[in-house]
């Protein structure tokens, strides 16, 4: 129970820190968001400036503390103001969220499953054929920058071979519907961005899983399982892998931060209209409300995953609960 409470505490604290950083950054910089927006329009009218400042929640006469509390309240209720194109930020985010959620969610699960499995098998048959090919190969790929892998895949499969589409999430002009044709269109557009994320992340799952397995396999309880004459697969999965997977679970959250960061670059490279692409367009348009809201969305996503991973490892490993 104390463990759960402590992890919840860290969750709230980090979220608060992220909110505060987000609040402070624009205010520590010269100028404010309203002035930034207006500086891109011609003929600054003081009344217009004031109207925008009110809209952005920048009240120059107001006490900073009051503004801060208002800001916290707005964030908690999802009121992030308007984008540069005068659309509510929240609408824009909710519109793009499913694409990124599906892309990142599915690829992370696939990469985790494949990576962990290969890690277990290659440690079990250490020095075998699988162990000497896949882990080093995927390790090298995983150290490559995400966007480079994306560019190579794009060049090979879309530009040169023309097997898969170059960009976007579905064919331009087709209307989203629940038909098989549209579904296959969506999938074919998602293959390359998804493949990029899987290939880039699987390597580090293999790496940590294999190394943990190697250590676990040398433990006495594995020796005892062998002495009992248990079948190999049972020793491998129930005795070694179950214990070796724990650090991978804790690493899950940290890895997710990397995957989310990588997804921004992947979406940019493939012009895949998810949150990452929105983030990028927000950057080029200097759309500050959009950017700060997206930063919070990414932070929240990671925090939730950290929490889930913590609870999962507490469930699997009683030792975490006691310490």
């Amino acid at each position: 129970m104390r463990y759960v409470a402590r992890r919840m505490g860290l969750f709230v604290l980090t979220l608060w820190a992220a909110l505060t950083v987000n609040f402070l950054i624009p205010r520590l910089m010269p100028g404010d968001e309203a002035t930034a927006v207006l500086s891109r329009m011609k003929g600054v009218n003081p009344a217009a400036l004031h109207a925008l400042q009110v809209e952005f929640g920048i009240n120059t006469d107001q006490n900073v503390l009051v503004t801060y509390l208002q800001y916290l309240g707005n964030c908690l209720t999802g009121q992030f103001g308007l984008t540069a194109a005068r659309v509510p930020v929240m609408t824009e985010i909710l519109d793009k969220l499913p694409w990124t959620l599906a892309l990142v969610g599915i690829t992370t699960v696939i990469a985790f499953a494949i990576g962990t499995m290969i890690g277990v098998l290659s440690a079990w048959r250490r020095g075998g054929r699988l162990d000497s090919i896949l882990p080093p190969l995927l390790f090298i790929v995983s150290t490559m920058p995400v966007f480079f892998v994306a560019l190579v895949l794009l060049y090979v499969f879309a530009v040169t071979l023309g097997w898969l589409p170059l960009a976007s999430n579905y064919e331009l002009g087709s209307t989203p519907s629940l038909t098989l044709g549209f579904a296959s269109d969506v999938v074919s557009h998602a293959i390359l961005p998804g493949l990029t994320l899987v290939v880039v992340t699987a390597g580090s799952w293999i790496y940590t899983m294999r190394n943990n397995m190697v250590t676990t396999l040398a433990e006495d309880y594995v020796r005892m399982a062998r002495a009992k004459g248990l079948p190999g697969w049972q020793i491998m999965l129930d005795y070694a892998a179950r214990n070796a997977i724990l650090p991978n679970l804790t690493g899950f959250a940290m890895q997710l931060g990397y995957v989310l960061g990588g997804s921004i670059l992947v979406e940019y490279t493939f012009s895949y209209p998810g949150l990452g692409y929105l983030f990028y367009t927000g950057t080029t348009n200097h759309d500050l409300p959009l950017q700060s809201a997206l930063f919070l969305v990414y932070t929240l996503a990671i925090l939730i995953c950290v929490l889930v991973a913590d609870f999962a490892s507490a469930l699997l490993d009683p030792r975490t609960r006691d310490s």
Partner: protein
Amino acid sequence: MTIPMTPETGVPVAVSPESTAGAPGSAAFRRFAQAVLRNRKATAGLVILAAMTVVAVFPQLFTNIDPQAAIYDQQAGPSAQHLLGTTQVGEDVFAQLIWGTRLTLLITVIVSLAATVISVLIGVTAAYVGGMADRSLSLLTDVFLVLPTLPLLIVLTAYLPSGSLTITAVMIATSWAFAARQLRAQGLSLRTRDFLEAAKVRGERRSYIIIVEILPNMISLLVASFLGLAVFVVGFAAGLQFLGLGNSTELTWGTMLYYSQQNGALESGNALWMLAPGAAVAILGTGFALLNYAFDEIGNPALRPVRRRRGKPA
């Protein structure tokens, strides 16, 4: 990026008391150098980094074309004169690749070094001082560990003047946390060692104990942290520049990627303009990663490749 999560990697090399001896044991260093040279991955990594360093320091040895002279045919494909083709304004891509090495490597090394120093300051202090200071520093580390780096970088660079200085500063500020956590763990394990007790009894100052007694015992972990950071920084700096968040007048591999993307190099038959700097970034990252991987193996004998046919668990 590789995040070594095994408990062992927190303590890569066995702490040898002789490395704390007054004269830093040249025997220990020689043994270490031998271990590096005997490891194939480490050798490959060293060769890559050495080659890149030579290119960064003496670019004029490899090309005599001015990388910023826009005097050639525009968007031309590869030819004998322009090995990798030319850019949208008629600059030589190969010359840019060569000259871009310098700033790319410089940013990587500076960020990784500075972030390692910060992680030492925070991690080791937390471990050694303990108590309230430890709790607050650990909390700070945990918070920074969870904050998503790339989104934070994007938000920060949006407000700061664009350029390598901004990217460098922002990356230092956001990338130290993981190493700090590892260093704290190592520091905690050292805390109760006899030689530290002895130093305390001698009445040495805290700063002396940390610098002279603790840090030399962490050299291997410091190197590992530096290498791990470098792998990450190479890709991230290039990624930021690729997104157009760097200073586009500065010549790095990242800005080359930015311009080639803006001009649709892949689709317009000028793919090398984009793939070459991408590959260069990947190779540099791999160089650091190979060294890092080798360090893990050197430090943790259990991970060394088994030369036997079928690995029976040790």
